[in-house]
């Protein structure tokens, strides 16, 4: 499953290639066809990285902009305060108070008072008293103090209704004002101040294009004056919230929503582009990786048919299979994941490095050192983890081997009372797996928490060093914010690159194996052979002329062998198991080339014929019945073209399998699989039918032996007799009747042809053949 793409570093132990450089070189060379696409994908990855580098800066701009709305603009507060209090400052107050009061303590007033009929004598005396007091202590403050002791009748005259800048002030207001002035308070209670006076002290004015009314100003003064000298920010802010809206708006900090909007739109575009770029990059790489994998698989599949048979004698099926699936999969996965990860991460790494050094070198070094510190630990952990992973795989292999062995031989294990032994062995392996498994799991699980810690460590380091530098005015606050982002961008790609490189290493090992197979020496090219021996021209003369052959050059197993088969003759090959009877088949079919001498068909050397040509002349039916998963029809017709159902049925009737096929649920379209519905003998019949369709002039047959039930065996033999009619046939013989009737018997032992001739001659010779033949009839064995 290929989900879990790049989610945290998951370190998997991978095999190491023998020669990493060579393997990678080969891998990239074979990718040449896709180089433009890969280039585009990698370019997109780099673009994505650049966008990734841009985004944090913009985001921190956004945060900066938002934080502008947090703190009071003190300058503005000062301006506003100055403006509002301009009339009540000490200097202007001295000037303005007399103007407001418009005191009339002069000759005219005195005359008026003394001659008034309305004012009683008592009041008049008070006034005179007042004047006398003023003579002793002159000054506005005394005047105001003593004025309050005067009766209304008098104050009405000395403080008449007056007009200031068009604002009418009556006597009562004036008295109130004086009263307030005389109160021995630190601050003036503006609320009880008469309106007319306030209007004069705090005239409506315009600050920053806003009309500030007298009321606003009065409320401002009263709010601000309630703040203690030693205020805290919270108290200040909560008071500011009480200010009249007009003033608040002036001094309140503002977030520029246009900038917020601009940054938001910008970031949305950056993020979208980033996603589109990276997805397009992945898309292209996925396409390339899969196409490449497909090509590799095709290459391997085609290669199978170009290799000499010798290759398969030395290599197991499982080996080739694992190259087709596992190795190719490994390569495709790592192409899919590592290449663009490496490039984009490298771009991110270098990009953030450049940005860091560009911004501030001290901070850059801090960030790098603090991350590298963590990576040293990580490298150690990685190494351990890999070690245990390999050990685990090894132990698991042993355990699985044991399980396989015991399960497949369970009958024997039981009857021989081997269960205890097997359990002991199992416990031992199981325990070993447990030990290495828990260790390998533990170490590979360490990676992610460590990565997170490194990130946090870098964060704190950058903050502390940054704060120090800020205090010394080396850098601004924004630099720290930027560096917090850079540390993240710097640490992440390192882990990713480490992981991608491990994957790539595994891919290199797989590449080695795949190309080892693909580059394997092929069969000799025969495209220059033009001679063709047509089927219909074949008479059936086959001649071995001084043939020498050995599977390995220095081990000749067939020495100087000569024999001749005339058209229609039967040649039997006999010998004990493992005597090398298939060698004869191999040579006849030109699966192997003879070392010396020659094999001739109708006088033509098979060396001068193409392999395909030789193959086409023979029908080969082997004991090892090869059927594939498919319908019966497909198995019989195989690669022959234009075989109609009628022919098919006719042949099956001849072979004697027609009845059986028809009893199957789907007749000729029944599927053949590993199930037991088709017995060994029936399988043999099917392969014979396949051979009959081929209808080649020459024949190679392997007779059925054991494991075939009697009746089917009879059928097989009948079918075999039919197929050999009139054809030169080579028969690997098990049946005595075949041997006796053969025109030529080749007796093989230990890979060598040790005797040849007719049955009678060989019996008379009293050699190995005679011994072999007689062993079946002597009173032997059991009694």
């Amino acid at each position: 499953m290929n989900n879990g793409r790049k989610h945290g570093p998951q370190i998997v132990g991978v095999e190491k290639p023998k020669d990493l450089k060579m393997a990678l070189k080969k891998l990239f060379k074979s990718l040449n066809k896709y180089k433009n696409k890969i280039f585009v994908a990698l370019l997109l990855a780099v673009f994505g990285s650049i966008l990734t580098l841009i985004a944090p800066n913009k985001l921190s701009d956004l945060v900066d902009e938002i934080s502008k709305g947090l703190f009071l603009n003190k300058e503005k507060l000062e301006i506003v305060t100055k403006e509002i209090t301009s009339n009540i400052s000490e200097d202007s107050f001295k000037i303005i108070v007399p103007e407001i009061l418009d005191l009339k303590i002069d000759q005219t007033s005195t005359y008026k008072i003394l001659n008034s009929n309305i004012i009683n004598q008592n009041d008049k005396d008070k006034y005179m008293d007042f004047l006398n007091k003023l003579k002793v202590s002159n000054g506005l403050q005394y005047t105001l103090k003593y004025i309050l002791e005067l009766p209304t009748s008098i104050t009405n005259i000395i403080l008449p209704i007056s007009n200031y800048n068009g604002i009418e002030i009556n006597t009562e207001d004036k008295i109130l004002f004086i009263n307030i002035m005389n109160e021995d308070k630190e601050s003036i209670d503006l609320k009880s101040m008469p309106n007319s006076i306030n209007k004069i002290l705090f005239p409506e004015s315009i600050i920053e294009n806003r009309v500030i009314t007298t009321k606003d100003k009065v409320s401002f003064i009263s709010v601000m004056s309630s703040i203690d000298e030693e205020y805290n920010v919270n108290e200040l802010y909560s008071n500011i919230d009480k200010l009249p809206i007009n003033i608040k708006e002036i001094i309140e900090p503002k977030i520029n929503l246009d900038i917020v909007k601009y940054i938001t739109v910008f970031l949305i575009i950056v993020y979208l582009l980033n996603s589109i770029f990276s997805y397009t990059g992945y898309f292209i790489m996925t396409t390339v990786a899969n196409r490449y994998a497909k090509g590799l698989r095709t290459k391997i599949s085609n290669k199978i048919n170009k290799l000499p048979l010798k290759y398969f004698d030395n290599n197991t099926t499982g080996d080739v299979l694992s190259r087709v699936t596992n190795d190719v999969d490994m390569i495709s996965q790592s192409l899919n994941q590592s290449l663009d990860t490496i490039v984009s991460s490298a771009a991110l790494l270098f990009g953030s490095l450049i940005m860091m050094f560009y911004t501030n070198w001290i901070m850059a070094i801090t960030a790098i050192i603090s991350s590298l510190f963590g990576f040293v630990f990580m490298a150690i952990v990685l190494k351990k983890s890999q070690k245990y992973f390999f050990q685990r795989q090894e132990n698991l292999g042993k355990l699985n081997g044991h399980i396989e062995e015991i399960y497949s031989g369970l009958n024997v294990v039981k009857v021989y009372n081997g269960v205890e032994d097997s359990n002991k062995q199992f416990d031992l392996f199981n325990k070993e797996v447990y030990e290495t498994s828990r260790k390998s799991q533990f170490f590979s699980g360490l990676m992610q928490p460590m990565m997170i810690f490194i990130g946090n460590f870098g964060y704190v380091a950058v903050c502390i060093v940054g704060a120090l530098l800020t205090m010394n005015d080396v850098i601004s606050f924004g630099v720290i914010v930027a560096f917090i982002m850079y540390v993240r961008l710097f640490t992440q790609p390192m882990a990713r690159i480490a992981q991608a490189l491990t994957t790539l290493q595994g891919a290199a090992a797989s590449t080695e194996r795949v190309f080892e197979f693909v580059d394997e020496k092929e069969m000799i090219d025969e495209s220059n052979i033009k001679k063709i021996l047509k089927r219909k021209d074949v008479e059936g003369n086959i001649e071995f002329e001084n043939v020498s052959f050995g599977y390995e050059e220095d081990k000749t197993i067939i020495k100087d062998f000569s024999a001749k088969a005339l058209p229609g003759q039967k040649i039997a090959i006999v010998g004990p198991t493992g005597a090398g009877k298939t060698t004869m088949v191999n040579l006849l079919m030109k699966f192997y080339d003879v070392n010396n001498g020659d094999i001739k068909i109708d006088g033509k050397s098979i060396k001068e014929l193409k392999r395909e040509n030789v193959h086409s002349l023979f029908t080969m039916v082997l004991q090892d019945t090869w059927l594939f998963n498919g319908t019966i029809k497909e198995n019989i017709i195989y690669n022959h073209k234009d075989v109609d159902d009628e022919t098919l049925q006719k042949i099956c009737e001849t072979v004697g399998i027609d009845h059986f096929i028809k009893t199957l649920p789907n007749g000729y379209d029944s599927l053949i699989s590993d199930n037991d519905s088709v017995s060994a003998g029936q399988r043999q019949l099917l392969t014979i039918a396949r051979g009959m369709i081929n209808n080649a002039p020459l024949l190679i047959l392997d007779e059925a032996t054991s494991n075939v039930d009697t009746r089917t065996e009879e059928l097989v033999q009948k079918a075999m007799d039919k197929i050999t009619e009139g054809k030169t046939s080579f028969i690997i013989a098990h049946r005595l009747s075949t041997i006796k009737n053969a025109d030529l018997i080749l007796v093989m032992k230990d890979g060598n042809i040790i005797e040849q001739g007719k049955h009678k001659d060989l019996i008379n010779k009293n050699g190995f053949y005679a011994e072999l033949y007689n062993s079946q009839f002597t009173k032997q064995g059991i009694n």
Partner: protein
Amino acid sequence: MIKLIKNLSKRDWIFIFISIGLIVVQVWLDLKMPDYMSEVTKLVQTEGSKIEEIIVQGIYMLLCALGSLLAAIVVGYLISNIGASFSMRTRKKLFNKVESLGMEEIKLFKTSSLITRTTNDITNIEMFVIMGLQLLIKSPITVIWAVTKILNKSWQWSALTAGIVVILLIFIGIMIMLVIPKFKIIQKLIDKLNEVTRENLTGIRVVRAFNAEDYQEKKFEVVNNDLTKLQMFTQRMMSIMQPLMFLLMYFLTLFIYVIGANLIKDALMVDRLNIFGDMIVFSSYAIQVIMSFLMLAFVFIFLPRAQVSAKRINEVFNTHSKIIDGKIDKSVTKEKGTIEFKNVSFKYPDAEEYLLKNISFKINKGETVAFIGSTGSGKSTLINLIPRFYDATDGEVIVDGLNVKEYNSKFLYNKLGYVTQKAVIFNGSVSYNVNYGDNGKKGKKAIKEAIKIAQAEDFVLKMEDKYDYHLAANGTNLSGGQKQRISIARAIARNPEIYIFDDSFSALDYKTDSILRKELKKYTKESTNLIVATRIGTIMDADKIIVLDKGECVGIGTHKELLNSCKVYKEIALSQLSKEELENE
């Protein structure tokens, strides 16, 4: 899956509880960290903060990070221990279970499938347990904790986060529905690809003889094409995951800020700084919430696969052998080496047809009895009733005067020397293989003698380390005949009362076959021999030949008697020997 969890030991559960505790601590520390982080940020941001304060806060944060790391390390240690010990125990249990199963049950599962169940399936489960434990504990705790921490901050932010989580879950849901089923098809196609390649490889001679290279390559290309197409589809789908995930997380942060900007703009001065702080904390918690949901989603992506494995394992656990061991573990009768079948019939439980019908015969000590018949006649089944690989459906199988069901299996087995049709070779030396099992430990001399009698001496002595020569698993470094001879030697080394040869001479050539039996007879005069064979030559000289046809006994007698009296036997004989040869007798 839940059933398998029962296999966790007490220690595992203690570990799990400790892990849960530690994970709670870890989550607490993880969620504490943003607080210190914003404290540090705030301090750096405000003019006139003292460097000492920043260092103190920084150290607090680092302590949190370190604590979280330590907790994670301990949890990782505990959980990998749990995973490994869980799989060790389950594997052991499964292994013992399989060993206890009868042939009937094993046939039902198929050996290859049992092997995968004990190996791959257990490993799959182990991986899931390790991943699941970590994520299933941590993610919900993180989600709940983080959510409670941020829920009352601002409904706009909560709604945004919830929206993103929903989008994410919908997306993952679509992925699971679209892609996961495809994985199963891909697995099938990979199997198919393997099959076509294997077909080409195993049939390489046929392919070449028929000049069918193109045919095979075309066949391969069809599967290759299908596989590539489907794999391309799933991988393309899966690669949407990462960009989309990042996009969602980026957007989440961005919009938390945008919402925050608007909230701050409209807020009272006194509340603004708090909202700002909330915003920073919220954004980091929200990411934690999203990540946790993502991790949970991963558990559900991997769950189906683990479930399939769990199901397969449980199928084995739920299967019980029908063979119940008897109690008798010492000789109670005076008989030795006698076998009697009394009206024995056998059929598979669900089958309609009997494989063996009403078979009765008696074999005395020292006799050689052969069984012959065509494939499916029931001869292998018949002798498999003696070691109780199956139990007779009706009738009695009596060994040494007692029904085999009465015996303790170990005692019964030690009476038998059983050689299978397909030779079994263990990974080990020649001596190990011959000396295999209980009651066979006879010392070097006996092993050498057994090898000699089994006609294996000549090739064993030719091998590099002779008796210590290492045989590969399944005997891949031996020929078919050699394998059979080693497994025959194994039976001889036990010196049993009763030999059972289940078509064990088939891979031997006539000559070796005949010499081997001659030598064996000399050596085992006291023993009873049962031979299943298809070759007339192998059994012609038996004391008694029992001819089976379609599960019925159609003849008992010597070769000569049967040639005259038994039609089926005559047919078999005629098919293998010419008339003339038979008359030569």
